[in-house]
Structure formats: C-alpha cells, structure tokens
C-alpha cells in the first residue's frame, strides 16, 4: 500500500542556516519532493517537542528538524540544545512505538542548498518506506472501534 502513499512531512528550519539553505535550493532550482512543509523558527533551539508531537498526532507521517552545523549556530550554542532534545524525543517516541526514522535532525548551512534538498528527498523516501503513521488523522478524536473481545480459540493455549 505504500506505493501510492504520499507521506506528509512537517519541517522546522532555523532562520539563519537551514531556511536559507531551503531558499538557496530554490534559487538554484534544485528539485525535491513536495511532501515537506516548512515552518520557520529563529533557531533550532526553539524546537519544542510539543510541536513534533502535535504534528505527528495531527496527521504528519514524519518530522524534520534542521539547524546550523554544530559550532556554527548563529546563537552560538543553541543548536546543541536542539540536538539534546531530539535525542531524548526520539527515545521517548520509541516508547510510543514510533519508528526512530520518522523524525530526523539535519544540519545544513546557508550554503548547503543541495544538501538540504538531498536530505529532504532521502527523508521522504525513508518515511514512504515506513508507511503512513496510524494516528488520529486530522486530529479527530478516534471513534470507538469494534469490541475488543477475544474468543477463546483465538488465544494460543
């Protein structure tokens, strides 16, 4: 079923490096799949796990967080905070049964339009391979499904 499946991906970019990388990808007309929709933050340090969970819960199949390369953060060291949160977020999501591959952290400098594009392409393909994320699509409260009755014979003795 993943052949026809087009993943929806929310991307968070920092205003100084990765967003400009996206701009550069544009100016250089480097093509990448349209599945990613970007949100601009001032810094990857602004990334709040709430955003990621919100996106996943409301129908995104993957989330991409991008920032300046370590040591080159325009706010000196805030991208390290993004890195730390990312790693803890990924661990927590594993507890929810979410594949780690569904969230990705990418460093891209303002000069790395091509890198940005290739990272997006790669990520979209990865998420496509993982298939849709079965969450309450469109944020609707899930309807109650069939009774969870287990008939005797269904159970291995």
């Amino acid at each position, binding site marked *: 079923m993943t052949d026809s499946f087009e993943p929806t991906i929310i991307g968070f970019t920092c205003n100084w490096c990765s967003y400009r990388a996206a701009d550069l990808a544009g100016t250089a007309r480097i093509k990448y799949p349209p599945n990613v929709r970007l949100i601009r933050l001032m810094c990857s340090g602004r990334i*709040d*796990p*709430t955003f*990621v*969970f*919100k996106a*996943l*819960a409301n129908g995104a199949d993957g989330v991409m967080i991008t920032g300046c390369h*370590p040591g080159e953060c325009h706010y000196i*060291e805030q991208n*390290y*905070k993004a*890195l*730390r*949160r990312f*790693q*803890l*977020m990924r*661990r*927590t*999501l*594993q*507890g*929810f*049964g*979410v594949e780690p591959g569904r969230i990705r952290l990418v460093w891209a400098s303002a000069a790395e339009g091509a890198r940005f594009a290739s990272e997006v392409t790669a990520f979209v393909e990865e998420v496509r391979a993982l298939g849709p*994320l*079965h*969450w*309450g699509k469109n944020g609707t*409260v*899930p309807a*109650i*499904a*069939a*009774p*969870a*009755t*287990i*008939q*005797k014979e269904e*159970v291995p*003795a």
Partner: protein
Amino acid sequence: MTAKPKFAMYWAASCGGCEIAVLNTNEKILDVDANFDVVFWPVAMDAKYKDVEAMEDGSILLTLFNGGMRNDENEHMAKLLRKKSKILVAFGSCASEGCIPGLANFSDSREIVQTAYNTITTDNPNGIYPMTSYNMPEGEIHIPTILPVLKTLDQVVDVDYYMPGCPPESNQIAAVIDLVIQVVQGKAELPPKGSVIGAGDSTVCDECKRTRNVKTIKSFERIWGIAADPTLCLLEQGIPCNGPATRSGCNARCPIAGAQCIGCYGPAAGVEDYGARLISSFASVLDANEPEEIDRILDGLVDPAGQFYRFNLAGSLLRAGVPAWKKEKA
C-alpha cells in the same frame, strides 16, 4: 430538604483513591450532607442507573466524576451524568488526564485482556476469556466492552472543571466544597468554565523547599542509587524529578519527603503536552554536546515514555502508543 441542591459522585476506570480522598476531608463531609442532597454515589450509597436516568436533565448541581473511559459502560455513564448535571467536574488524574490506567494506551487492548487472563499469575486453566455478549436459555446477556484506548472524561463529554491529583489533596477538596457551598449561598462566583480548580497555576518547584542552582545534568540517577543531599534540588542531583513541569497544589509533598515528583498533578496552566515540557527541559540542561555523550547520559533514563507520561498519557497530544492506534484503525 428537597430544596437542597443535588450532589453526585461517580467512579469510572479508577482505583477508588479519589473516593477515599473525599472521605479524608473528615468532618467536611458533613457539610456536603448538610448542604447537598446526595442523589448518586455508588461507593457510598445504593442507587440504580435507572434512578439516574429517571432524573430530570440538569437536575444535579454538582457531579464529581473520577476515573477514565476504559469501557463503553464508563462512556455511557459519562454521557448520562453530563446530561443530568449542571456542573461536571473531572475529578482526579484519571478523569482529567488518564492517570495510571491510561498507561495501558501504550499497548493493544487485546494484549491487555490477554495479560489479565493468560499470564502465570492468573489461574485460568481453560483459557476462558470474557465475551461481551452470551446467549443463555434465558436470553442474551451483556458485559461492558473494553475500548481500544482509554479516554479522559473531556474526550467524551464536555467538562466544566478539572481537579487534578492522584488523588486530589483532601485539603484542596475541602476548599472546593467550601467554594461550591458559598456559590450555592450566593456568596461567591464560579471560576470560568474549563478552569482547573483545587490546584495552583505554577509548578511544584514553586512549593518545594529545596535549594536550587543553575541546572546541569551530568547523569541520571535512581533515587536508591545515590545518597541524595536532603536540601538540594533532586533534579540537580540527577534524579529525574518531574516537579518543574507538574502543577503546584500538593505542597511538593514528594520532593520535600525526598522522593522525586512523579507528576500526578499534571501540567501547569496552559501547557499543551505535559511530557513534552519535561523532555524539552531535561534535555536542554544535559551537560553534553556530543551525540554519543548525550546518549550515554540518556541511557540513565530508563523508559522515558513512562517517566514523562505516567499520569498524562491519555490526556497528551499523542494520547496512545502506535499499537493502540493500529487497533483503532483496524
């Protein structure tokens, strides 16, 4: 006598602790009796659902509803009591945000039933499993159907107020009872709909007496693993204390007693996702910049999902783990 406003209290998927907490208000319970006509309170008095159904809509002034929505009966009662009550309070952590029963949302409800009826701790030689309906000579009988995911009260019906805590502190309950009585006597105004009552707006740290410094976490410790400094902030000692993100109102009972806060009072005012706040804040102050080093520190944090969502899972943004949703979609 009949002039007295009607009071009801109901328990859905819960442990009964909330009821005990109400009783723990001691003589205050007499005020309830003095000022209210208790019409429905299964744990305290005998009553049948049909009695409630018979009641006029909106005839109950105040209903304290504890427990989450684990099966269709819980939901039925939630809807019924909503119809019958003027003020419906999600009472305690279960009704407000799912609490411990909500942790079941990490797994497929089938597994839950299996775990209950088919583990070595269960004496079930014939592997009998409950069935929702069964035809007997007398006719078909029913038992409630377990839902794929446990829901909080406000995920099923409209809720007027929330009262957090596992269970809510008795003194807070007493205060709330006083408030309602004053309202009834026209001496006070009700807070705006949807607000959290019987708790503070800040977090546990606000009430915690321990000394605090600029935080950095070099490693995570288990409470029994270290000789913790009794006066210093637990989190600074590496003990994952949920205090910073947990709503105030309990007088920081646990941290002051030397145990880390586990978060039963839920998120602070206006917070969208409790766990996310903890993830973000804990991670931000890790004392490492290299991925490997960060991982090394995080290895000390066993079961982060459980750590951050022990009480809040059903009420969180994600609300349940993938297995439960998969079931949901099936």
